[in-house]
């Protein structure tokens, strides 16, 4: 084989190699810098939330209800409970639909159908979440005559579906064809091959996708404004208005009271910690399961 066109011929070494090494170092440095820039905001955000939020973070914050405007004390217990319920229910409703849809797209839809559905799912993922909130308002709040935690959960479910469906689709695509063929060669029907071979192989990736989805909807404010409305007392009833951490942070952060600002920061910290704890817990469970199978 001869050298490709445009590739300098001649002996390796001398000034040429020095120049190439310099270019390599420069580009490596630039890439490293870009990677650093990508994580700097994360570190800064976490540090900022930690510094601002820690002073107001105490047991009262997560166990007490808000006090009347401008009064000292109180907490955001209704928001913590509401976020757990609505994110939990939204995930419970949305995830099965999303995973099954992802399986259909990758395993059954076929070339043109898969492209079409993928496109539509991507469109859904691109719909502004405030619009999805308005949709849930028209679908549930107006007919039922009440703002409710259920309406909030449904809005969140609609948001998590495209995220998890596309990741499931991608993860299944990463499972080598040879694995499927090996299963078929043993006489296993396709549905069984999917359930017992393909899905387990893609499992960790799909769970990561679900985690991303949960983290995403846990931080959503816009779809809850017209659905969950907010609540100053702890409510576990899905038919009543419900509070949520992002909603409470939004109200408190845009308000004039210093105590609100402090609690908004602390509530942000609680939200970040919740998502982090959930993510760690899931990974921990996964790892234990994986180990117990070996």
């Amino acid at each position: 084989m001869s050298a490709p066109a445009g590739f300098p011929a001649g002996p390796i070494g001398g000034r040429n190699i020095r120049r190439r090494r310099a270019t390599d170092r420069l580009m490596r440095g630039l890439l490293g810098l870009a990677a650093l820039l990508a994580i700097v905001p994360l570190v800064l955000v976490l540090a900022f939330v930690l510094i601002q939020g820690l002073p107001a973070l105490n047991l009262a914050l997560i166990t007490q209800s808000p006090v009347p405007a401008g009064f000292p004390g109180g907490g955001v217990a209704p928001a913590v409970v509401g976020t757990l319920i609505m994110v939990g229910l939204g995930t419970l409703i949305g995830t099965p639909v999303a995973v099954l849809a992802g399986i259909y797209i990758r395993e059954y839809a076929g070339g043109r159908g898969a492209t079409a559905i993928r496109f539509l799912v991507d469109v859904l993922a691109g719909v502004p979440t405030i619009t999805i909130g308005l949709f849930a308002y028209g679908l549930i709040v107006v007919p039922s005559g009440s703002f409710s935690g259920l309406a909030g959960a449904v809005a969140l479910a609609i948001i998590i579906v495209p995220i998890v469906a596309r990741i499931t689709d991608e993860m299944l695509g990463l499972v080598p064809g040879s694995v499927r063929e090996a299963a078929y060669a043993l006489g296993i029907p396709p549905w069984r091959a999917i359930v017992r071979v393909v899905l387990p192989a893609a499992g960790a990736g799909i769970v990561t996708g679900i985690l991303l989805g949960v983290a995403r909807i846990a931080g959503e404010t816009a779809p809850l404004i017209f659905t969950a409305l907010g609540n100053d007392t702890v409510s576990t009833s899905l038919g009543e208005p419900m509070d949520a951490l992002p909603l409470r942070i939004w109200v408190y952060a845009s308000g004039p009271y210093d105590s609100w600002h402090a609690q908004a920061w602390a509530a942000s910290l609680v939200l970040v910690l919740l998502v982090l704890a959930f993510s760690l817990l899931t990974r921990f469970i996964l790892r234990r399961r994986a180990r117990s199978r070996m």
Partner: protein
Amino acid sequence: MNLQRRPSGLGLAAVAVVASLLVGACSSGPGTSPAAPSGVGGQTSGPSAAGSMTDYSNVTPSTTLGKSDRAQVTGAGSTAIYPWLSAVAQFYKQQVASGVSLNYQAIGSGGGITQFTAKTVDFGASDVYLSDAQEQTIGVPVFNVPMIHWAAAMTYNLPNVTGDLRFSPGTIAGIYLGTITRWNDPAIVADNPGVSLPDLGITVTHRSDGSGTTYNFTAFLSGVSANWKSQVGQGTSVKWPVGAGGKGSAGVTALVKQTPGAIGYVELSYALQNNLPVGLVRNAAGNFIKPTLASVTDAVTAAIPNAPADLRFLIVNPPTSYPNAYPIGASTWVLLYKDYPASKATEVKAMVDFLWWAIHDGQNYAAQVDYSRMAPDLVAKVETVLKSVTVGGQPVLPQQ
């Protein structure tokens, strides 16, 4: 995406994940739910702190709501009434019915009217009564029930100016029309002899959402400025010639607090609780009046004799015969349906009982949070209205 990892049952993992979330939700529920915030702060030491209890001769015990009754009432609207209403709801819960939670979301009067019209809330609250057209849109008979009075205060952020500034109505109109743009404008200087005003641009702030405070403020300006009346007019949201918008009373207060040179109009308690200065405004009689409980009460007194039976009235621009009345007073109405479906009986009973308490005992807390209580004449009229509220055709309150 660790594909080398040993297969891990996806379904089970997902279920476990969700289950752990739900378990978390449930376990944090019971421990926290009924716990009302214990320390509500030094300023609230019971009814006595608010001054003498007014003796309303015809106070009948409202409903028989007891400590064991549970209900959640949802209301939304006016941000101006929020500090008083949230405080009164808290005291009602502590002193009367611990099982009744009033969930009031301060989304603005415009939002309150919208949600009341869409029938998604048990009650709305608005700083302006419903217009005939709005009542027609709702389609069922409704009540405008006055609850409390307050002042729309002119608040501002001038770091080096001590003492309260004075504003003549024309100056405020000029500032909001954009013809007065600097704090050392001759018009402002003329209102404030002896005060050294900085050569600083005025940042005009107003409400960005539909607001009853805006309605009362623009009604005041329309009454005193022909230019304002012809160019802008009055409404819950108007086409502002200049300025930046803030969402809710809280949003405008935050804007003023954070912006040197800013001016805004907010319900008085928002300004006072945030240590913002409050300007004096010249009334029809020519006196510069500070918004206080007394000066707002004067404005209410001036308006009550002419208040129509449906209780739709404004208290801005009181006549010259009330020389100490504040010119930008306002009221907040709770919006109720005349008849509620029988399925809502518990909520409505709790709601009407609470409102009954709010127009009697609740008025005693008004002063603590810088609102003006309703005049006894008005309370009597409101009692009649509350007694006309029905559930499935049956009155909620005892009729005599």
